[in-house]
């Protein structure tokens, strides 16, 4: 078996047993990437020389010793680019520091392999908003990989990475994981430090793993979770031993089926696969309970006020002064700002900055932003009430399998509406995971993966992983 098709946990055993070296893994991935990434477009940049050097010196006694990890291109790693899929940072930016998750990966012995494509500044659900490159779904090259962490999901699905990190603001880890047929975990708000993640919407963003197995997701989460003085929102609470929790099963657990997530607009084959997964968990000893999350229909409107509002503020730092794009021959400082931003940002980023600026502007703030924050409370309380009755919730990740490339290019609202099943976890701050639960045949004969979404209470990643492990095919 080639090493690139393996998992973190299997490779770790082989490394410790001395059957392979960490450099062998990098070399195998490098060959796979050279042979196939021109078709997929998962990576924006590679650091194979750095990876080989790190692999050669890796301490195999560490939890991720000698194991290569790919990073979404919005996570800073000292000396590497961090383009965020944007013309603004395509050139003229080299990270002067490590993000906390990057530092923790290095400290755990991991090897940084390369940087993956993404929707510009993580704004999108298809990775088609990357200004730099197209990423194709490895299961069907005519279809999207999902987004915004589409490069990370595609790299793992195509065996061009063993595992990767992504970021999830409204579903950007779970939805591409679902579309590509890999595992993607969004930790609870405050579980993982965002220091060094280029901020999109600070009350929603979380970094998490994309892996081939639930076991690997537990391993990678373990390495990056925990308090950090550099991110005041990162909670100072103990991190359980996730790998130990995995095998405990679901016997006696109560799993909620929210009726609002299975209604109109959900592809019948997607629904059937998710319902079958729920039945399997019932057979494994869980009790299925019908529940209601009554404010679900308002999640899209709430999210698309709050996230752009925060983005418009966060992206004001891209002004052409300190890093990245600067317009040529500016007439004055204001002209420098306006033209650098006009030239540097793509259309989706501009749309969201304008939308966010509008909902925060004088006269509209209360009607849009304050109201959305209150509806966010209602959505959060829906989950609190539900988790009074059940241990975890089962839903689809996306209403349909991966769509074709280029569809709905001129209709952003249509694209936003397809995020409805993943937004709630970010608005409520709870944790969620996508686990492959089947596939749907396309008209061209390809098999399109379908993900089961499991949602668990705030900081209950151990529960999440137990259910995910039991649901894994």
């Amino acid at each position: 078996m080639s090493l690139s098709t393996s998992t973190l946990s299997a490779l770790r055993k082989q490394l410790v047993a001395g059957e392979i070296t960490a450099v062998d893994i990098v070399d195998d991935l490098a060959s796979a990437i050279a042979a196939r990434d021109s078709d997929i477009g998962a990576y924006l940049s590679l650091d194979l020389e750095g990876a080989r050097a790190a692999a050669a010196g890796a301490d195999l006694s560490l939890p991720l010793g000698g194991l290569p990890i790919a990073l979404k291109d919005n996570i800073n790693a000292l000396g590497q680019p961090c383009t965020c899929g944007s013309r603004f940072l395509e050139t003229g930016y080299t990270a002067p520091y490590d993000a906390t998750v990057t530092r923790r990966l290095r400290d755990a012995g991991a090897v940084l392999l390369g940087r993956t494509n993404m929707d510009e500044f993580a704004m999108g659900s298809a990775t088609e908003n990357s200004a730099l490159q197209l990423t194709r779904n490895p299961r069907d090259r005519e279809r999207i990989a999902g987004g915004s962490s589409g490069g990370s999901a595609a790299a793992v699905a195509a065996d061009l990475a063993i595992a990767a990190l992504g970021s999830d603001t409204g579903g950007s880890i779970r939805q591409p994981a679902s579309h590509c047929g890999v595992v993607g975990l969004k930790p609870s708000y405050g579980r993982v430090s965002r220091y060094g993640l280029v901020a999109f919407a600070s009350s929603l963003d979380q970094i998490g793993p994309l892996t081939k197995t639930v076991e690997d997701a537990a391993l990678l989460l373990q390495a990056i979770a925990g308090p950090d003085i550099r991110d005041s929102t990162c909670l100072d609470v103990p991190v359980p031993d996730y790998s130990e929790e995995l095998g405990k099963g679901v016997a006696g657990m109560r799993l909620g089926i929210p009726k609002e997530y299975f209604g109109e607009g959900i592809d019948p084959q997607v629904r059937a696969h998710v319902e079958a997964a729920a039945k399997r968990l019932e057979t494994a000893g869980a009790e299925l309970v019908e529940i209601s999350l009554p404010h679900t229909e308002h999640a899209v409107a709430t999210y698309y006020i709050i996230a752009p509002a925060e983005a418009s503020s966060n992206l004001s730092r891209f002004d052409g002064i300190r890093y990245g794009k600067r317009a040529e021959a500016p007439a004055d400082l204001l002209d420098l700002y306006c033209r650098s931003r006009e030239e540097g940002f793509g259309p989706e980023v501009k749309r969201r900055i304008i939308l966010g600026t509008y909902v925060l502007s004088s006269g509209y703030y209360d009607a849009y932003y304050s109201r959305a924050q209150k509806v966010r409370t209602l959505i959060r309380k829906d989950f609190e009430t539900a988790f009074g009755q059940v241990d975890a919730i089962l839903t689809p990740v996306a209403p349909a399998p991966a769509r074709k490339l280029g569809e709905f290019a001129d209709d952003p609202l249509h694209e936003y509406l397809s995020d409805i099943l993943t937004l709630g976890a970010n608005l409520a701050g709870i944790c969620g995971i996508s686990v492959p639960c089947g596939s749907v045949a396309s008209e061209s004969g390809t098999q399109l993966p379908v993900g089961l979404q499991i949602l668990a209470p705030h900081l209950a990643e151990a529960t999440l992983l137990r259910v995910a492990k039991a649901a894994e095919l």
Partner: protein
Amino acid sequence: MERAVDESGAPAEHALAPARAFLSNPRRMATEHIDVRYVAGLARLELSEEETSVFQRQLDAILGHVESLSALDVAGIEPTSYPAPVYDVMREDVPGASLPREAVLRNAPDQAQDQIRVPKVIADA
């Protein structure tokens, strides 16, 4: 080039009209069209004519959807700013290393004398 925001930073008078109209009837959400060019000016974005008209249509549709929230009764509901709020987080008061000046300056599009250079801000006397 005409800008919605003039040199003093004050919004042009016409640009405030939608906000004024809204304020006179604050109970409803804005149903008038978003003034894309004005809002883009606030966000320091200079849009082309084509972008402005495309965004106008798309943002009207998006705002039409988000206005569905106006049907909800949110009286007495506390807003959520952060899903897991923590307050007064302090680190130990111990000095640590800052980012190396050279590494930070290397990213600046224009620099001189160990500083980032920008166009002149103050007019000649």
